[in-house]
């Protein structure tokens, strides 16, 4: 097992290193954002997945890292004290410091109250930021320039990509190392039974703050990397939707596995980039996927692979594979039907369409997937209805058969 995973990791790293040769500048930029999202999600996963502490305001640490870095970029101006490649250290420091302070408060409570406190801390920053213009730059934010260092100009996307990749890989390695340290094992203890840890002689509050701080540190690095890539920081980085998306990404990927959040973030980031031109409802799809994962696949997408393998092992490939294939087909049908429905509704509810319909007095046709559809005709609505019904029926069938077979064993 160890051999295959190391091989996979090396292969993945090699592939990542080869990206600038394979991708266009635009895609490469998207890849940079994907890496940053993956790091942010991994930092989040340390706290939420391993320590079991659900944070809903993690944008705060990302943002603090971002602003600290942009100020450092402007203040130091490439004066050699801190060359560009080492600037994420500023983000790390700021994330760590703020993580300690915020963590100290937040870990006074646990569970639900903890979650709400983290949310309120982020909202506090979000409300305060526009008022402190010297720190956060107001509406237009603060910009800075990447300065040349170590013989490189850092002007091209390729160089930014490699800088980001290096920091993300190093950070992931450190995060993984942390899981093997006593501190990392104690983090698991926090999740499993913080109460007992107390009676085993541990200062549980301290442990919680430490986990929070480390998560803040790496979130700060992610924020710093974003500022280096975009050469600007804006207080919208404290927005609720930044905190929301790291939660969604991490759980969709699956917080039980080390690379789960990173994979979830990479996937969502990629899809967001790929389809954001094609649809306005991308965030809605992400939310629906998240709810589906929480209801039916609590281990996340990473867990899907494991459950599938388990099923094949238990039932034998002859029985399991057709049912799994049926399930996948059902998922495709349901997804297709949902997308059709949502896209149709989005067009019908848009302002332009409503204006058009008002003047025309009837429902004009809509353009979707490169074709024209009659809005009021049954044929149009039959599509989503049919897809959803067949998908639903097939899914129900596959599930009942699977469960029945498993019960027989």
């Amino acid at each position, binding site marked *: 097992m160890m051999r295959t995973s190391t091989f996979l990791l090396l292969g993945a790293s090699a592939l990542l290193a080869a990206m600038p040769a394979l991708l266009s500048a635009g895609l490469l930029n998207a890849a940079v954002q994907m890496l940053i999202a993956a790091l942010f999600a991994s930092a989040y996963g340390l706290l939420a997945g391993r320590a079991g502490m659900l944070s809903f305001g993690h944008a705060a640490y990302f943002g603090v890292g971002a602003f600290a870095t942009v100020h450092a970029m402007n203040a130091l101006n490439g004066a050699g004290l801190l060359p560009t490649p080492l600037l994420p250290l500023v983000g790390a420091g700021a994330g760590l410091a703020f993580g300690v302070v915020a963590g100290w408060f937040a870990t006074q409570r646990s569970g639900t109250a903890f979650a709400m406190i983290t949310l309120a801390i982020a909202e506090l920053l979000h409300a305060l930021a526009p008022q402190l213009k010297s720190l956060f730059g107001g509406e237009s934010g603060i910009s800075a320039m990447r300065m040349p260092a170590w013989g490189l100009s850092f002007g091209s996307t390729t160089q930014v990509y490699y800088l980001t990749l290096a920091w993300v890989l190093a950070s992931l390695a450190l995060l993984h190392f942390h899981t*093997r340290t006593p501190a990392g094992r104690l983090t698991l203890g926090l999740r499993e039974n913080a109460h007992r840890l107390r009676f085993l002689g541990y200062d549980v509050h301290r442990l919680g703050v430490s986990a929070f701080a480390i998560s803040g540190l790496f979130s700060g690095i992610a924020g710093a990397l974003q500022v280096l890539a975009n050469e600007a920081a804006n207080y919208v980085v404290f927005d609720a939707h930044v905190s929301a998306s790291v939660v969604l990404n991490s759980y969709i990927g699956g917080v039980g596995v080390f690379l789960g959040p990173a994979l979830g973030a990479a996937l969502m980031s990629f899809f967001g980039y790929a389809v954001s031109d094609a649809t306005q409802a991308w965030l809605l799809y992400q939310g629906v996927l998240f709810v589906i994962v929480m209801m039916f696949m609590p281990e996340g997408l990473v867990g899907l692979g494991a459950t599938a393998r388990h099923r094949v092992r238990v039932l034998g490939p002859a029985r399991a594979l057709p049912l799994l294939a049926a399930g996948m087909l059902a998922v495709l049908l349901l997804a297709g039907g949902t997308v059709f429905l949502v896209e149709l509704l989005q067009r019908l509810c848009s302002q332009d369409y409503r204006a058009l319909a008002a003047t025309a007095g009837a429902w004009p046709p809509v353009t979707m997937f490169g074709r024209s559809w009659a809005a009021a005709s049954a044929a149009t609505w039959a599509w989503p209805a049919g897809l959803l019904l067949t998908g639903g029926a097939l899914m129900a069938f596959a599930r009942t058969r699977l469960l029945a077979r498993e019960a027989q064993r």
Partner: protein
Amino acid sequence: MSGTILGLHGLRKSFGETEIIRGVDLELAAGERRALIGPNGAGKSTLFHLISGHLAPSAGTIAFDGLDITGQAPQRINRLGLARSFQITNVFPGLTVFENIRLAVLRQQPRPTAFWQRVDRLPGLREATEQLLERVRLQARAAALAGELSYSEQRSLEIAMTLASDPRLILLDEPMAGMSAEETDYTLALIRELTVGRALLIVEHDMDVVFSLADRISVLVYGQVIATGTPDEIRQHQGVREAYLGEEANAQVPA
């Protein structure tokens, strides 16, 4: 080994209007095995919560080996050498048995919260963990998840984790609850073995266990200790028989 290891003086605990512990005085000698018995609702678990720092008393003091530990935090009390087990198994269910014990033993390392070295590189940690595993006879289950153990295996794990800090005083809260006769005998032997040289305060309902294990017995009724003595003394004690058997039964039983 002489000297008092645990001293409770005038201990009281109220929850709102209800007073659960109504003035408890108790002294435990180092190395002594004391059983704490009494009817349900007498306050035995509450007493344990008070001693281990889970609850702060409303009045009175608790002294551990001469040190005043009244109202101290549980982690501090544990560090001083007092460990407790729980009536409802209180382990790390999603972690392996090995990991459970390791987390308990880890506390004795000089740098238990280190983040710069791997946990399996800490000197002596693996050995100490394996030793404890063997003493509670769970080596075969080392890789199993704690949540998947059988009930009595979990109780053994519970005891192992309590012992990990090499405590001078152990509080065991109904370690045999829900066990079959076989399991009870096994666990009794285990407890006897593992508490040599340590003071033990054990709450138990199984009278056979109590009479065979304890050097002395304290009887807690309605938040007060009504009797302390050797098993024989307690067997004869008027007040104890009344508390357990009622006055009429007492009248019928020959002295």
